[in-house]
């Protein structure tokens, strides 16, 4: 076995570096507390409960990271937690990845603003999980090693395919990271009175510590703890909302319609997206994007076999479905409790303090009091931390495992180098995420997530799906078609209303829709199929035999990557 304890030699340095980071962080956080108090006399008073609860989470998760660092020896530990995660744990971790700040804050904020149309996000988010189950999860586990790219590369000419799916991964990861960072900054700005940039840096630094030292083991457990806290918090809050309303959905919706500026229309479609093409495009991005999100697909390699991968999806679907039903209640609850209360609105501008993404946070104060506000805020901040960790690990694996090991080193890389490079990539991605988080301060977080989903739906999903299901797929078709998909998505985003008009300041968008997925995914699949059919290269017969072998492996798990033996 080539991948045995390559990090033993690095361990001492590791620990001292880790300790140093912990000290710097604690001194930094505690030292910063008086300045929270200083800032407290302006718009946002300090909340000691929130800060201490968040610090508690940080202490526990750093402890876990320390424990995980000792267990992270091989690249299998670093990327796949030694394949020792159970289906239940992984289901919770997957649900945790999906229940991001964008879900909790963004979607409840969208319901707060647009009412019924927030339900599109809720339903799109949940509808993708059965698709992942029926078509992807088990096959992916049987075919891949650490990244979904492994499963794509198994039958095709690996280098170009890996470069393309690694690019798809990185673009989706970076867009998603921006959304999370913006959420973190807004949240802490509002709650702690800390500057936006300070929150972004805190998240970035903590996330870099979790991932560099604890790899997938730490990332998984941070996610599991946070998912548990989040499900608990959302449950309590939804119950508190319903207690005030005598558990009557009728009065929830009635009061929401009386308090919302849209009136009764808040319970009908049209509040957020009014043209049909945008609705369909958004729905497509949500359902197929989830099925192509690299940090979620990566989690299927942390379980021992396909059976556990299947259990993971079942549990994840259950948790996510339950959570989204709660978010739906919280969204309408925030209309009832927040929309009519002038305390939550800025005196000068008349806008909701902190923007619409803060609706659920205000709700926790209004419906459950200050202590619970502290708890929910701490959980929301923890959510962001956990999700950015998973995203960054996934981005780092694309750089180190897909590009460095397999493309540059032809699979012959030295284990120590691989793990070291993953750590460097983590730090670089972390710094990039912090800078972009500052640059994109004014964007709606749920919307940024939709952009990430569009890339995942237009590049990652088509390649992964067709490589597993279509015998006729060729390397040229996958790479050229996938590239067209990626360029189309990015191009349409740049030319669309969000960047062309809002960011670049042009008068009118060249591409009229905010959500490109319907067009870019169609372009991608169409190009992949047509270019594969046109490509009658020499590899055709070999490729057909390879497809047979791949099918056997996909169905039976013969030759699949097993659990760690150490």
């Amino acid at each position, binding site marked *: 076995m080539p991948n045995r304890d390559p990090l033993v030699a690095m361990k001492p340095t590791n620990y001292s570096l880790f300790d140093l980071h912990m000290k710097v962080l604690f001194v930094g956080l505690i030292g910063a507390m008086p300045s929270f108090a200083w800032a407290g006399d302006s718009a946002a008073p300090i909340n000691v409960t929130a800060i201490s609860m968040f610090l508690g989470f940080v202490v526990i998760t750093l402890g876990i990271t320390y424990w995980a660092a000792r267990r992270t020896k091989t690249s299998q530990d670093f990327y796949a937690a030694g394949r020792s995660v159970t289906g239940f744990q992984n289901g919770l971790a997957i649900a945790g990845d999906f229940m991001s700040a964008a879900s909790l804050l963004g979607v409840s904020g969208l319901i707060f603003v647009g009412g019924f149309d927030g339900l599109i996000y809720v339903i799109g988010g949940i*509808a993708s*999980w059965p698709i992942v189950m029926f078509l992807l999860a088990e096959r992916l586990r049987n075919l891949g090693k650490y990244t979904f790219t492994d499963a794509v590369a198994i039958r095709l000419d690996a280098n170009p395919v890996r470069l393309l799916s690694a690019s798809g991964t990185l673009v989706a990861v970076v867009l998603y990271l921006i959304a999370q960072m913006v959420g973190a900054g807004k949240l802490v700005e509002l709650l702690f009175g800390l500057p936006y940039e300070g929150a972004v840096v805190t998240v970035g630094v903590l996330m870099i510590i979790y991932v560099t030292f604890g790899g997938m083991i730490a990332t998984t457990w941070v996610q599991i703890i946070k998912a548990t806290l989040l499900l608990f918090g959302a449950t309590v809050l939804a119950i508190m909302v319903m207690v005030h309303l005598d558990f009557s959905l009728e009065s929830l*919706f009635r009061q929401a319609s009386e308090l919302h500026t849209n009136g009764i229309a808040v319970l009908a*479609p049209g509040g957020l997206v009014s043209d049909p093409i945008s609705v369909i495009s958004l729905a497509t991005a949500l359902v197929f994007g989830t099925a192509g999100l690299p940090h979620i697909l990566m989690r299927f390699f942390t379980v021992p076999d396909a059976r556990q991968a299947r259990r993971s999806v079942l549990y994840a679907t259950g948790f996510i*479905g339950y959570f989204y039903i709660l978010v739906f209640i919280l969204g309408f609850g925030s209309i009832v409790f927040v929309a009519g209360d002038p305390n939550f609105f800025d005196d000068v501008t008349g806008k909701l303090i902190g923007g619409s993404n803060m609706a659920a946070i205000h709700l926790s104060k209004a419906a459950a009091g200050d202590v619970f506000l502290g708890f929910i805020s701490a959980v929301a901040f923890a959510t962001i931390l956990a999700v950015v960790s998973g995203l960054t690990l996934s981005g780092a694996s694309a750089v180190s495992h897909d590009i460095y090991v397999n493309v540059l080193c032809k699979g012959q890389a030295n284990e120590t180098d691989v793990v070291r490079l993953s750590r460097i990539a983590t730090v670089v991605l972390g710094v990039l995420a912090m800078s972009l988080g500052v640059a994109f301060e004014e964007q709606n977080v749920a919307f940024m997530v939709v952009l990430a989903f569009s890339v995942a739906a237009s590049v990652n999903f088509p390649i992964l799906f067709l490589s597993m299901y279509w015998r006729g797929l060729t390397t040229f078709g996958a790479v050229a078609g996938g590239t067209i998909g990626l360029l189309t998505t990015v191009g349409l985003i740049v030319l669309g209303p969000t960047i062309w008009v809002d960011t670049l300041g042009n008068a009118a968008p060249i591409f009229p829709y905010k959500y490109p997925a319907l067009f870019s995914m169609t372009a991608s699949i169409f190009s992949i199929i047509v270019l594969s059919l046109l490509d009658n290269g020499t590899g055709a017969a070999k490729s057909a035999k390879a497809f047979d*072998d791949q099918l056997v492996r996909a*169905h039976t*798990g*013969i030759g699949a990557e097993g659990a760690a033996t150490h």
Partner: protein
Amino acid sequence: MVDEQNHLALLSDHINSNRAFHALRKRRSRFSWTLTGILLASYYAFIMIVAYKPELLAAPLYRGTVITVGIPLGLSVILLALVLTGIYVVRANNDFDPATRAIVEAAKRAACGPDHES
């Protein structure tokens, strides 16, 4: 390493020439695609109504309520996703898993002889 790969290739060929494997593959495919079809059809049906006939969803569920038809309909798509996922797991546990095991074991016996289970 090379031996292991040859062994895997041998197993793979055995499985691929087993009619039971292809029967299982087809049965499984048909089931997965049926469930996928049901889910996508319901999901896009809902989305198409939101996109083109939103007034259908804006109607009150019954006389005297503010709750619109769209709300329970949307929530039932969530419920459908959960139910279909559950159905899949039950079928996979009770049918696909034992069938797969039998096929793999048959291939191992054929490839390695009866007393060389690996």
